[in-house]
């Protein structure tokens, strides 16, 4: 028996009206904080840009404080909290989130508490200290900043070191477990659906919906674990894991683009079902490893429009058809200039949902091992190809947003570090300054000795001398080392 929690139920610490306010105004606060740090970095203190951002920051902080009676900016794992509300990433704030996370981590700060109405001078001093170049490690930097704040009599702002409390650890572990459960169940249901259609049986629409709801909830709650699981890429279950992966990528991208929960559901359902037409294509064509004959190719190229027919048959007597899923099934191999397949007779432009799914589909397909692609392409090379080759016909802005979601080294990429350790990319770093420095799990040392459990390392952290202890030098083929990267996400 499956047991799940709804999104808001997991941290029911604040009244909803307050949480909504904090989420909205907290986002403004973080963006303003980021803007101020950047302004201080670029201009002299007396410059109007600095003064303006400082006063805006102080004003937003004061407003939150007045209304909520407290203002606490807290880091927990890869999340930012304002008071007890976790802020959600979206298209307009991901850069600021990543940057501030890294800045605070580097300064050994876990929490910034604001008391009363902190004057702009207090903010100026704190943020200048945060951004200062130094060779100290985070603990020492924290002490240094704390002393400096005390000596300069900074009022209204207090910094605290990071405290990984039991609740945070439990939350992270719960999220990981929930992600694994969601993922495996999604693959199982997808398998059941595709096989049912192939055998002429009616699959359970309720199960399909529940799967997509689960994925949307998971992405909204804690994205990293689920996106990480897309690295599993099980060859034997390719057809099913591919559909689930495309669904996960699409929903994660949709969330980044600011879609609402119900829009994400529509997008997710469409993505999960995008290849449903393949259930009407002979299996021997789908699994053929040799070059396809023309007739076989035509059968495979029929899957987009076959998908529309399958989806019409799927709907119950009373149920409104998912026209979006049909549209996506039909358009996901269409390029921006309407080349690709199927061919159009009537005028159309490819809709945004289809463009998103096309990017997710193209990425997952190219990075997976399949019957006719025994060696998958490295994820980073695929992203680069998607970005640089207009012949692929993908929407360049959607591709950009997708790269931005996955990072230069997408989750699941096997990389060689300059220490000659092997590592699997575990989570992307969204900060502009740390594009090439994701969080990784070290698989083996330079001698090839496997490390268990694989230590998790943030490549963006510097050592005492201000150097990066580890840097990625190249990506590697997991098959070459006999490594199943999926093992590092389950």
């Amino acid at each position: 028996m499956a047991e799940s929690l709804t999104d808001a139920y997991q941290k029911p610490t604040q009244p909803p009206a307050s949480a909504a306010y904090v989420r909205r105004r907290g986002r403004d606060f973080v963006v303003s904080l980021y803007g101020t740090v950047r302004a201080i970095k670029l201009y002299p203190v007396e410059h109007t840009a600095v003064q303006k951002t400082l006063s805006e920051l102080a004003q937003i902080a004061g407003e939150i404080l007045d209304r909520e009676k407290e203002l606490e900016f807290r880091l927990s794992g890869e999340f930012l909290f304002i008071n007890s509300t976790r802020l959600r990433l979206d298209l307009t704030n991901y850069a600021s989130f990543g940057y501030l996370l890294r800045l605070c981590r580097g300064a050994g700060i876990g929490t910034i508490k604001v008391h009363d109405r902190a004057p702009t001078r207090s903010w100026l001093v704190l943020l200048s200290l945060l951004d200062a170049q130094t060779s100290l490690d985070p603990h020492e930097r924290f002490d240094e900043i704390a002393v400096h704040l005390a000596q300069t009599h900074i009022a209204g702002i207090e910094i605290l070191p990071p405290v990984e409390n039991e609740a945070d650890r439990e939350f992270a572990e719960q999220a990981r477990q929930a992600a694994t459960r969601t993922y495996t169940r999604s693959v199982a249901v997808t398998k059941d659906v595709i096989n049912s259609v192939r055998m002429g049986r009616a699959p359970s629409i309720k199960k399909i919906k529940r799967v997509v709801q689960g994925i949307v909830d998971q992405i909204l709650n804690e994205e990293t674990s689920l996106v990480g699981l897309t690295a599993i890429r099980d060859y034997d279950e390719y057809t099913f894991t591919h559909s689930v992966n495309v669904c996960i990528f699409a929903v994660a991208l949709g969330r980044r683009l600011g879609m609402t929960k119900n829009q994400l559901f529509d997008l997710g359902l469409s993505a999960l079902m995008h290849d449903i037409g393949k259930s009407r294509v002979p299996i021997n064509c789908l699994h053929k490893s040799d070059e396809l004959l023309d007739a076989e190719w035509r059968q495979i190229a029929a899957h987009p429009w076959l998908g529309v027919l399958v989806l019409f048959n799927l709907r119950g007597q009373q149920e409104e058809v998912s026209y979006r899923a049909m549209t996506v099934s039909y358009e996901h191999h269409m390029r921006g200039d309407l080349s690709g397949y199927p061919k159009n007779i009537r005028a159309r432009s490819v809709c945004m949902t289809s463009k998103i799914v096309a990017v997710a589909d193209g990425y997952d397909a190219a990075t997976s091992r399949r019957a006719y692609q025994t060696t998958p392409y490295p994820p980073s090379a695929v992203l680069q190809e998607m970005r640089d080759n207009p012949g692929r016909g993908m929407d360049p802005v959607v591709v950009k947003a997708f790269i931005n979601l996955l990072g230069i080294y997408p989750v699941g990429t096997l990389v060689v570090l300059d220490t000659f350790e092997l590592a699997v990319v575990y989570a992307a770093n969204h900060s502009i300054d740390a594009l090439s420095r994701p969080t990784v799990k070290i698989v083996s040392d330079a001698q090839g000795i496997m490390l268990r459990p694989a230590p998790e390392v943030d490549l963006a952290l510097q050592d005492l001398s201000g150097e990066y202890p580890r840097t990625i030098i190249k990506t590697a083929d997991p098959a070459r080392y006999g490594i199943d990267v999926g093992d590092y996400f389950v």
Partner: protein
Amino acid sequence: MPAAAQLAGTSVELPFAQSLVTEALRLFAKAIRAHQLYLPNNPMHVRAMEAARGGFRAVWDEADTLTLAVTDAELRWLDRPVLDEPGRTSDSIPWMFFKDGVRELLFRKGFEDEELIPLLALLQRARLASAEEDDLLTLLWERDFSFLQYKYVDLAMEGTPVLERGAPDDRERILAPGSIETDAHLLASSSITRMDEYDSTLYFLDDREIDYLQGEIRADFSSDLRERVIASLLDTYEQQSDAAVREEIAGILDSLFLLLLSLTQFRTGAFLIREAALTVGRSRDLSLAERQRLVELSDRLSEKEIFEQLLHALEDTVLRPPQDDLQELFSQLKPVALETLLSWIGRSRNADLRLLLEAAGSRLASAHTSELVRLISSPDDVVAFEAVRRAGAMKSTAAVAALAGVIAHGSPELRLAGVAALSDIGSPGALQVLERALEDEDRDIRVATVRMLGSRNHRAALSGIENHIRTPTLRSGTLAEKMAFFEGYGTLCGDEGVPFLNAILNTRGLLGRREDAELRACAAMALGKVGTDSALMALQRALADRDVIVRSAVSRAVRG
């Protein structure tokens, strides 16, 4: 209120009195029933909602949240039953939640103001839902309540096999990267990511790009995708020559069309028919049967039963879709629909709908005159009446023969409409047929006919009108009929008729008696219509007539 209460026999201390929760739940249950039974403006409904709100507010005086466990027959608070409704039916509130997997409910302060009504509406929808429709869990998920959270067990997922992964990798050592990755060739390979390839301007979205994406998403989610899907189906139909595929698509389009009508998606329905017709016109490789199948799509709308159902729905529905959507749909009607259309024009009590039907009827009738002519002879008087009316409005000479039939055999109402239609048509043939109506047994029709003939200045009818004037039957008729005939006569006769009219107005009979005053007044009016000098002279003579009726008529006639 006690700060804490304790239940006999248990050691768990309650934070506040159980009776508060029990009462809140009792009122909540009553609100659910009231929402099922009454409209929101009903005082019973209003009272029940207010009571339920009051119940929750009493709880919020003690706590900010209320968590309830759900069993198949009870809602329980801190392991005590607070709502007991045994019986596994949709009337039992615990069972409604339980059967779809909800196992715990958490209400927050503010629920009663913000989300009580939406929850009641949702429960009502779930109660009435069929097995194929969304269950309570999906409805709750979609509604995304802020003041109500829930825990659930996913019954739909029961029995779903969990995918097993293979045995874990237990190797102690693998290839050392250092031993194989130092090769110069490998290091130069494409797997090395060059950072200059990832200039941040290429990697991060600028404001313009963010606007583009958000605009596209807005457009995407506000557009109707049905037309896109129909276009996909028809494009496929045109490109796939496989008969089975075409048959499947035709079947889908057929059922989709009915679905669109039932959902009042008229514009999309019209799109479907129009595009299907385009496919028929464009595709050269369609078999006769395939062609026929697509043509039938638009025929179906025009089928009496289907079209009547649509009109019924439109007539009975208060809210209507935009009228241009309907116009779009009606523009796809076939001639066979004209009969139904005309029948509804005559019967509809909905002014907006009637206007649309009139427009559609005019379009169809003018494009398909033969169908209109056929309907003039319809056994359904309502249809025949509208067809006659429309034939007149269209000045359709092709309808004259059928109208002659109406004049001869139709009901009085229909004959009257026929007279008007023939007059509107106004062709020599039409007016010739119209003359026959001078002999109609119905006085109103005779009066209308003579007026029409007069207004059309149809001199050929003069002798027929004169015959009437001279017959004794007219003299015993009503003043209106006399007046109509005399005026008609005056309009058509010219100077030649003046002596006859003057004789009636001014001359005495053998015994020195004049004609009766009404007849003389009619003659005066007729002379007024003639309007020549001789006619005016005849009128002058009667200006001082002693009979007030005559004098008044003469005076009016002279004034013109």
